[in-house]
Every structure is written in C-alpha cells, then in structure tokens.
C-alpha cells in the first residue's frame, strides 16, 4: 500500500507531466500572444521560467501570500489594460493571466487538469477572434497537442513516450470525429446572439454605409478585403450588368445622402418585372449592416428572416455579424414596376431648400430643352460624357455647395460624386430619383467558378422613376465606361500613382485565385453553416421544417448510432490484435502445405516443420527458413516491434510458392 502511494506521489511531481501541461498552455495561448497587451506574454514567460526553475533547480514556488496579491494584481492589470473584463479580448487576456498564475502553483494532477482546461478555453477563444481557414490547422494541432497533454496528465502510473501519446490522442480524435460531425450538422442551431457583443460592434467592419458624403472625402481608400462571394447557378449575367444592390439612399440633406426612415406603416415593395432571371448563391462576409446584397430586382431569397424594404432592398431583421450564406433569384434588365405610394414618390423628389442653386438652375435649363424625362436624363449623361469630367479616386474637397462645386468647378470625382450629382439634377427636374449603394462587377474565379466581390468593387449609382418604373442610371459609366466594363482592378493597375494590385501577375494571380477558392469553399460550407443553412440541408434531406426539439432528438439518435458503431469497431479490433502474427504464420503453413503436400502437425514446432519443408522442396528452403526464423523471433523472441511485424507481413505476402515441381513434371 505504502509502495503504491509513494509511486503516485512521485508521478505527481514528474517534470515531464508538468512540461506537457505547460506545453498545452503554450499551444492554447499562442494565437493570443501577439494580440494581447504586451505585458501578458512577459508575465507568462516569467511564470514559466520560474516554474521550470522550480522543477529543475528546486527553486521555491511562491507562497500563498505572494500568489494571491499577484493574482489580484493581474486581474486589475487586465481590467485597466482593456477597461473591461468581459468580451473576447479581455477574456482571453484574463485566461492567459490565470494560466500563468496557475503555472506557479501547479503541483498535482488536479492543478495540471485546470491548466489543460484553460488551454482548451484559450483555443476556443482564438476561434472567436479569427475563423480563417488557417485556424482549421490550428484546431487540429491544438486539439491533438492538448489532448495528448490531457492523456499524460491523467496517467498516474506511467507516462507514455511522446510519439505514443500523440498517436493515442490522434486515435481518440479520429474516433471522436464521426460524432463531432453528426453533432456539428444536426445540433440545433439557434440564431444568436443571446447577449451583447461589444467587441464585434466596436471593431469597425469596413463596407457599405447607410450614408455617403462625397464632398467630404478626398481619397477613396480601396480595400482588398472580400465583401462577399457569389456563384451563379445557371447562367451568368454580363459583367456590365452585375449591380449588387445594397442600401438605398433616398434622403438628401444638400451635402450627402442617407437612408430614409419611412413611416412604419409602409408596405414592402411589390415587384413586377420582365427582366432576365438569374439564380445565385451568396456568402456574405460579416459587415454589421442589415442589408443583404442582391442583384437588381430580387424575386426570391432563402433567408427566412429577410424581406424586401420599401426601396426594394433586401433587409435582414438583424445585423449580419457572421458569415452568412443565402440563395436568391433576381431579374436583370427590363423595367421594374413596383407599387410605390405617393408618399414614396414625394420622398424621392425631396431637395433641401436653398442648396446648390447653380445645379437647380442647370436642371431647369436642361429640362426645358429636353422633350421628356427620358430625353432629359439622356442629356445629363451626355453632359457628363462630353464636358471634361474626370474619374478620380483623389478628388479635391468640396465646400458648402458640394454639388455645385463638383458640377461647375472641380469636375473630378468618383462614383459617389456622379451619382449624387445626377440624382440631384433628376430631382430638380421633377423626376423621382435615389442613390443606390452597392457593388458593381466582381472578379471571376475560374477555379471555383464563382465571383469574388471585394470592398474595392463598392459603387454607387442612381435609380430614377421614369414612365412608371424604376430605371438604373449609372453616370460613372458615362465618364469612365471602362470602370464598368472591365472592373476597377484594371483601371487602378493602369492608373499612374494609383493602387497597383499585385494580383495582375498571372502566376501570382493563379495562386491567389486557388487560395481564394479554398477559402470560399471553407466559408461556404463550414463557416456559413448556421440556422438557415442547417434548415436548408435538412429540408433537402427530406425533413419537414424541423424544430429545435426534433432536431435535438435527431442529433441524439445519430450520435447514439455513432457510439454503437464505435463500440463495435473497438471490439473487432481488439479481437484481432494479438493473433495477427499467428494468423500470418498459419497462412504461410497453408501455402507450404499446398506446395509440398505435407501439412504441419499441431505439435510440430515451426523449426521442425521448416526443416521438413526444406527436405521436400530444397528450392523453398531458404525463404521458408528465413520466414520461420523471423516468425519465431517476432512471436517468441518478443522484439514485438510493429515495424518488424509489418516487414514480416510484407515479406510473407511476396512469398508465393509454386506447386510441387514433381507434380508439374508429371503433366
């Protein structure tokens, strides 16, 4: 009894086990180290070195009266550094500090277990921070390493060698996979969030906004970041028709455009169109807004919590904080008839009084010259085309009358300037008009046959109410038609001093596109898998609109099936493990018996039988003796190395003795 107790004592203090637990902490903490306040990695390093010193050199571990103030200090330091102790950033910082502190007092199995759990939670927190495909590798490496550490920590009697621990951990993880996959697919996904997400809201996600103020921007920062990816299901519209509509800006304050807040009673738009219809699937990156991008006139969409707004924009009930995938069908081209009330039309004629007088004057002049609204709008576009307007990403700043200044003085700007000016001109002539923000074009990825739409593809254009239907008018196309036809990337590549997109190199471009295809698949199949995707999948499998409870039952049933399968496989494997060598040898004996006509007797030793065979078939003697010796060494010599066993099996497979030559001679 005493001996057993002392054994366990010595195992508790084993430096290797401590090293495993500390390694797990490092593995879990690594993705955070660069992101947290710099004093935290230093603290971790300090505590780690102290603990190593304690384990190796017998340094004393800090006493309780040091550890408690230290822990309080760490807690306060986190609270001060982050001005909070909740949220992902502060939470992971706090976890790291806790891990560092725990390291200092880790003595027994229980303490090491706590370290492992902290590591697992750090790993989890890393995913909240970042979900790129690279994190999948981290998921695999992290779970493998930390599971191996858990295996070692749980051992009281003997440690496994490193490779053995990793192998066992890998085996356990592989066995865990089917169950994990079933749960991943079937576990009821509830649309979150349940509590506030301060970090998400504060970390500004670039993208479209509900407001544009062309005069206030001197340079348009074009970001390479991906806004969304789209895949057409049957037939792709021409590149020039790819207008992805986002927020519709109907309110003009003389300087900028913003989304109008219509009265709550406004019914959603009813749409009628004769355009060509296209189906597509979109994976939207998190953007913080409520709108779902869609091609010109959305007719159908698969997002159950989305609906058409009064300006035919597709709106979700909640802001999109995570990757979100949906399918939609839109009509492109033709005219769009939608019931729009008088209130809606009036709102689209609104102009602030006393602003941009020169523009209003121009509008009155041109309208008088035009035969009808359509002709008027055509003349406006011609104006942009013929007058020396320039497309520029670095327009000068505009003053108090931005539209006037743009139209008559600077004549240099990007899409927002033109859209804004056109919309004001249209309204001034009594034509209802609005600015639409969204994306235009996209980059086709031939590898995955889908379109990548980046933030750089952001665009703004005008919709005007002509002949009882909304018509798209893009003034930018009149100024810089190549911007529309070829996409912005190429324009920028050619522009002196402009942003040179390194993607233009063919080789690099290919690699980049392949990588993006992988990322797209990752986003589409894994990250965008949410309540909607789950519902779609289950409907596709023939389940009728499952409720969470039914889903839970289904998940339970599938999981149980997995478990039974696992148990069955486990039982089968165990049965075979020991006798494999023996079975191989029996196989050899059968072959030899067939070759010599003399089977092995049960009480005959392998060596004795080998010499009998050697006497009967001298041609087989060498290999038979060699194989027999190998078998004896493996089975009875107890070298028992799996590699040797495998080598034996390979050699055995190659050994195909022919029938007795005597029999051949007779034939």
């Amino acid at each position, binding site marked *: 009894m005493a001996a057993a107790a002392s054994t366990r004592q010595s195992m508790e203090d084993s430096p290797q086990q401590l090293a495993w637990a500390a390694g797990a902490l490092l593995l879990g903490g690594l993705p955070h180290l660069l992101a947290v306040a710099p004093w935290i990695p230093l603290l971790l390093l300090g505590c780690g070195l102290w603990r190593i010193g304690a384990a190796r050199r017998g340094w004393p571990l800090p006493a309780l009266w040091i550890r408690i103030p230290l822990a309080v200090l760490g807690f306060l330091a986190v609270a001060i550094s982050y001005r909070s102790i909740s949220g992902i950033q502060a939470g992971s910082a706090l976890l790291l500090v806790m891990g560092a502190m725990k390291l200092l007092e880790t003595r027994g199995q229980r303490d090491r277990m706590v370290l492992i759990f902290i590591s697992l939670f750090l790993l989890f927190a890393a995913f909240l921070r970042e979900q790129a495909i690279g994190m999948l590798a981290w998921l695999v490496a992290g779970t493998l390493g930390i*599971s191996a550490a858990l295996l070692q920590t*749980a051992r009281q009697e003997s440690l496994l060698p490193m490779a053995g621990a990793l192998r066992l951990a890998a085996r356990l993880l592989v066995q865990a996979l089917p169950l994990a996959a079933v749960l*991943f697919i079937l576990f009821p*996904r509830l649309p979150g969030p349940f509590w506030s997400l301060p970090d998400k809201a504060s970390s500004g996600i670039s993208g479209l906004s509900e407001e544009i103020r062309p005069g206030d921007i001197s340079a348009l920062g074009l970001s390479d970041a991906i806004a969304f990816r789209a895949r057409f299901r049957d037939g792709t519209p021409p590149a020039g028709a790819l207008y992805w509509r986002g927020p519709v800006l109907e309110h003009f304050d003389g300087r900028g455009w913003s989304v109008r807040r219509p009265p709550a009673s406004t019914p959603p738009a009813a749409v009628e169109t004769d355009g060509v219809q296209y189906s597509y699937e979109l994976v939207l990156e998190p953007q913080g807004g409520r709108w779902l991008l869609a091609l010109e006139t959305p007719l159908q969409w698969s997002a159950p919590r989305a609906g058409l707004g009064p300006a035919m924009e597709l709106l979700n009930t909640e802001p999109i904080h995570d990757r979100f995938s949906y399918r939609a069908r839109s009509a492109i081209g033709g005219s769009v008839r939608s019931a729009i009330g008088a209130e809606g039309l009036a709102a689209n004629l609104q102009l602030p009084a006393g602003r941009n007088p020169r523009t209003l004057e121009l509008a009155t002049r041109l309208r008088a010259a035009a035969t009808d609204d359509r002709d008027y709008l055509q003349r406006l576009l011609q104006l942009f085309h013929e007058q020396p307007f320039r497309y520029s990403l670095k327009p000068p700043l505009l003053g108090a009358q931005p539209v006037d200044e743009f139209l008559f003085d600077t004549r240099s700007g990007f899409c927002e300037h033109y859209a804004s000016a056109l919309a004001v001109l249209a309204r001034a002539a009594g034509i209802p008009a609005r600015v639409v923000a969204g994306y235009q074009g996209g980059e086709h990825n031939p590898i995955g046959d889908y379109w990548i739409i980046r933030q750089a593809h952001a665009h703004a254009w005008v919709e005007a109410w002509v002949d009882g239907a909304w018509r798209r008018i893009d003034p930018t196309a009149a100024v810089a038609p190549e911007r529309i036809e070829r996409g912005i990337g190429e324009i920028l590549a050619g522009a002196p001093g402009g942003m040179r997109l390194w993607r233009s190199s063919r080789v690099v471009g290919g690699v980049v596109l392949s990588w993006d295809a992988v990322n797209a698949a990752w986003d589409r199949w894994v990250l965008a898998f949410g309540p909607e995707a789950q519902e779609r999948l289950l409907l596709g499998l023939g389940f009728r609109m499952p409720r969470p409870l039914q889903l839970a039952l289904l998940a339970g049933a599938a999981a149980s099936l997995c478990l039974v399968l696992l148990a069955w496989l486990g039982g089968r494997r165990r049965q075979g493990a020991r006798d494999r060598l023996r079975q191989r040898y029996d196989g050899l004996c059968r072959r030899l018996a067939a070759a010599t006509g003399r089977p092995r007797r049960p009480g005959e030793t392998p060596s004795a039988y080998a010499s009998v065979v050697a006497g009967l078939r001298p041609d087989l003697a060498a290999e038979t003796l060699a194989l027999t010796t190998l078998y004896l060494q493996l089975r009875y010599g107890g070298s028992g190395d799996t590699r040797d066993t495998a080598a034996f099996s390979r050699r055995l497979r190659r050994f195909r003795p022919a029938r007795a030559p005597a029999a051949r001679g007779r034939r």
Partner: protein
Amino acid sequence: MAFAVLLVTMLAGAMNYNNNLGFALGFVLAGLGIAGIYHAHGILDGLQLHCLGAEPVFAGELLRVRFLLRDEAGVDRRELFLDWPGTAPVAAGPAALASRCVELPLATQRRGWQALPALRLQTRAPLGLVRAWSWVHIDSRQLVYPRPAPAGSVQPPAAAAASSTGRRPQSRDGDSFAGLRPYRPGDTPRRIVWRRYLRGTGLVVGEDHDSETQAPPCFDWDAMAGHSDARAARLARLVIDAAAAGVHWRLRLPGSELGSAGGQRHLHHCLARLAVAGLPADEA
C-alpha cells in the same frame, strides 16, 4: 464534471457568436470524451486476472494476496488499479501483451478460511475524465493461521517438558546425551561416547533426545483450557517454539493426530490444521 461545464460553456459561447469553429472544437471535445469512455472500458475489457493466492499468515497480519494480470489484446493497461473496498488502490495493469504480478494486502481478523472480498478494478485512463470500474468476485479463500499466544505465555505439557524445550540434561562429562547403553552394530560413530571408551568401559552409546526410543512431546487440544480460539493460539505458540527449537513433536487435535515430525513443513501442516480446528464445519 468540470469537463462537462467547460463543454457547455464553449457551446453556449459558440452559439452566441454563431462561431462554427467554436462549435467544431466543442463537438470534437465531446466526441473525445465519449471515445475516452470506450477506451477506459477497453482497459478493463479482455483483461486476464488470475488470483495466485497468498502465503498463509497469522490472524491480525496482512494477507498479501497475489494477482497475475495479463493482457493478450494489445491494450496498454498500465493505468489500471486494483483495490478491495476501503483500501488504497494499487497500480496493477500490465503493459500491452505483457503480464504483471501484484500483491494486494488484506487485513485478517481471525483464523480459518478467509473468503476474499469483491475486488474492484478501476481506471481513469485515458483522459482522466471518467472512471471505469468493475467488480470481480473471486471464488477463492485463503487460510489464516491462528494468532499465536505471546511468547513465553504457554508452558509445554509437563510430561514432555524435559525434552521438548531444548534444554538437555547435561551429564557431568559435559556430553549431551540423555542416557547410555552398550554399543550395538549399526549405531553411528557419533553416538559413541569416546570419553567412556578411553576410560576403558568399552563402547557405550549415548541416547540423545531425538532418538526414536524417546517419545517426542505431544501437544494436545483437549489438554488446553479455554475456548477454541484460545486453544488454537496456545497450540500455535507451542508448535512454533518447537519448530524453532528444532525438535520433533506431535499434535493431537479432536479427531486426528499429526504424527511425530519436525521442520518447517510439519509446522505449516500443524498450523493449517490449527487454523480450522474447532470451527463449525461451514467455516472450516
């Protein structure tokens, strides 16, 4: 338990942030936990356990029961522990395709056959999250000798006292023979009392204490007072002393008599009989 809390927290977090990698991690860990249960079960499953019995001990001493554990399934079972209820678990598992012998102490209270209590096999391996255990009922009983009465507390039977305590009567010549008789052919030379021969008395032969002509002491159950445990204790002390003194003895028990002999084997034979003497038939 802590692991379950960890998992639930993770899943709640993943659900809140709608974080699919978080879900994946949570589910993989859940799967890991389940696979761990199977592995823990596998450590117990297919184990060969043989009870090798124990060397007999005196009542009150620890019976060291030996077990041979063998793995033939290629499962590393080193994290397997054995215990009786109420004792500290002893690491007992063999490595893959190996065997291991362990000793499990078991307290004994009284003489007689002691049945082994149910044996518990348990392991927390591989993950330390769950404990798999199994009770094994061993159909084996071990003999416990009576606890001998304290040394010196029992006097050998008076009739045999002179020759059984090892104190031999010393003749004035200092040789160690109890009596003398004329030499007969066949007597060993070492019995010849050479000193007498030198004095001219002819060859005489000494008869020593263990000569077969003199009866060895007989320890009699019925001659002892008290209840059967007390008798067994006293007789145990007598035979132990006799064996230590290297003399022969006889042991008379109700219904049987163990013939005159000496040495360790006879001692154990006698103690075994004393262990069960006077006990009801179902205990004996």
